[in-house]
């Protein structure tokens, strides 16, 4: 069996006294397109932050490509839900995308020619190349989202994690973004948090429902048994209501 991209065992996490996640087991094979859904405050974003190593679990283990999350950070690309920056920050699209190359080259000085080439390539892929010199304050919500995807791609990740990438954009752009993700999935593992299970079902192979605990569903019922066997029988089929 292929080495899993992400393997989580008996994970428990709490903010202070408030339990957010308990008894989470999840195995994501390389190349999977996994949707993560669940109610607000159910722990979806927390799970992504744990996988990225931004926070540490209280109990349980997380392995990303066989390593602890902090050691695997550079193999992951992350698209946050609410960008932590202000929209009027004086920075261009290209400069933002280049930030994905940080940590790859030398410590001091500017970006290398190689970094700039990669940035141009991923901007092309995310269809924001013509916006390269635009300040981010002049972008629409959908354009900014694509820029953030390009920034994550500039990391040349093996795993792409997206937190509600379509929360602030309209339906048409949502489809375009997921078409792009579908294409990217041919070469990398993708985890996408969403509130819209009906919509993502058309794209992802499996849905993880998180509400403090986690239950996985196959999106195509016909293939369920076959894929279930492929995953080593770890996937449970459970009917529940959203």
């Amino acid at each position, binding site marked *: 069996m292929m080495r899993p991209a992400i393997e989580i065992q008996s994970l428990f996490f709490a903010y202070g006294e408030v339990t957010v996640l308990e008894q989470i087991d999840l195995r994501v094979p390389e190349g999977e397109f996994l949707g993560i859904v669940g109610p607000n405050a159910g722990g979806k974003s927390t799970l992504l932050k744990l996988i990225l190593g*931004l926070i540490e679990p209280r109990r349980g283990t997380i392995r990303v490509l066989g390593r602890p999350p902090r050691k695997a950070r550079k193999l992951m690309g992350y698209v946050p839900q609410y960008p932590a*920056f202000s929209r009027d*920050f*004086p920075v*261009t699209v290209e400069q933002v995308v280049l930030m994905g190359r*940080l940590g790859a080259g030398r410590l001091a000085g500017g970006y290398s020619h190689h970094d700039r080439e990669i940035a141009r390539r991923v901007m092309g892929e995310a269809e924001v190349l013509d916006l390269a010199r635009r300040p981010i*304050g002049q972008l629409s919500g959908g354009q900014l989202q694509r820029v953030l995807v390009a920034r994550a791609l500039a*990391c040349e990740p093996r795993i792409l994690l997206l937190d509600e990438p379509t929360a602030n954009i309209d339906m048409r752009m949502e489809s375009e973004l997921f078409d792009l993700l579908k294409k990217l999935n041919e070469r990398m593992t993708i985890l996408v948090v969403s509130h819209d299970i009906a919509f993502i079902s058309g794209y992802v192979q499996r849905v993880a429902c998180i509400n403090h605990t986690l239950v996985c569903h196959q999106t195509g019922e016909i293939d369920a048994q076959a894929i279930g066997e492929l995953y080593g029988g770890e996937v449970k089929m459970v009917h529940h209501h959203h």
Partner: protein
Amino acid sequence: MQSALAAGLLASIGCGVMGSYVVVKRIGYLAGGIAHSVLGGMGAALFLGFTPLHGALAAALLAALLIGWIKLRWQAHEDTLIGAVWAIGMSIGVLFIARTPGYTADLMNYLFGNILLVTPAQLWQTLALDLVVIGLVAAFYRQFLAVSFDEEFARLRGVPVTIFYLLFLCLVALSVVLLVQLVGLILVIALLTLPAAIAGHHVYTLGRMMVLASLLGMIFTTTGIVLSWQWDLPAGPVIILVAGGAYLLSALGSEWWRRRRAGAAT
């Protein structure tokens, strides 16, 4: 007056660079805390017989590290704690100056600046501080940009965010010290932020903002010093009023320009 003009030109460079960060990061209050606690170091230096500028430098760096540590450790109470550092630093300074024979009258000089205090030796020190600020910012421009733009993402890319944040605050402290002798510590924040804020109205990248802010700082300090000399007024407040007036014009002008463009588009 010539050394004052030269000090103004030199200080404007470091401040244009760091002031741009202060404006885009919106940490004017934090920079204010560093600036005001500088009085503690100047007072202590006077009392103990050192050069006030050295005391200011030590106090500014100490305050920067203390405030940085507070921010990283107790984020929720940041403003209260910065306010405390601000006031405690000033109180220490006032007490030391009160106990230093013959220096009480000079308190105003530290608070509001006195260009006559600028000596040729201080010009060299100002130049050295400038070179430190510009050298470090140039070497780590990518990291500083990433940390001030999106700290979480920078951390994920393996940038040592805490170290760069503290280094960044120390550089803000250095630029504050650059200006203290010119406009005094109460007016420092205006000269640190106003040129950068004006630049922010007109350019859209941080690098250009730094260049424009430095040039504007040079224009404001020079104009302020010349006017104050002609009218026999204290230079610090005149410089600040020149900068403040320019900011007001720039804000109104860019607002008018935006509306005109919005009007033309519809």
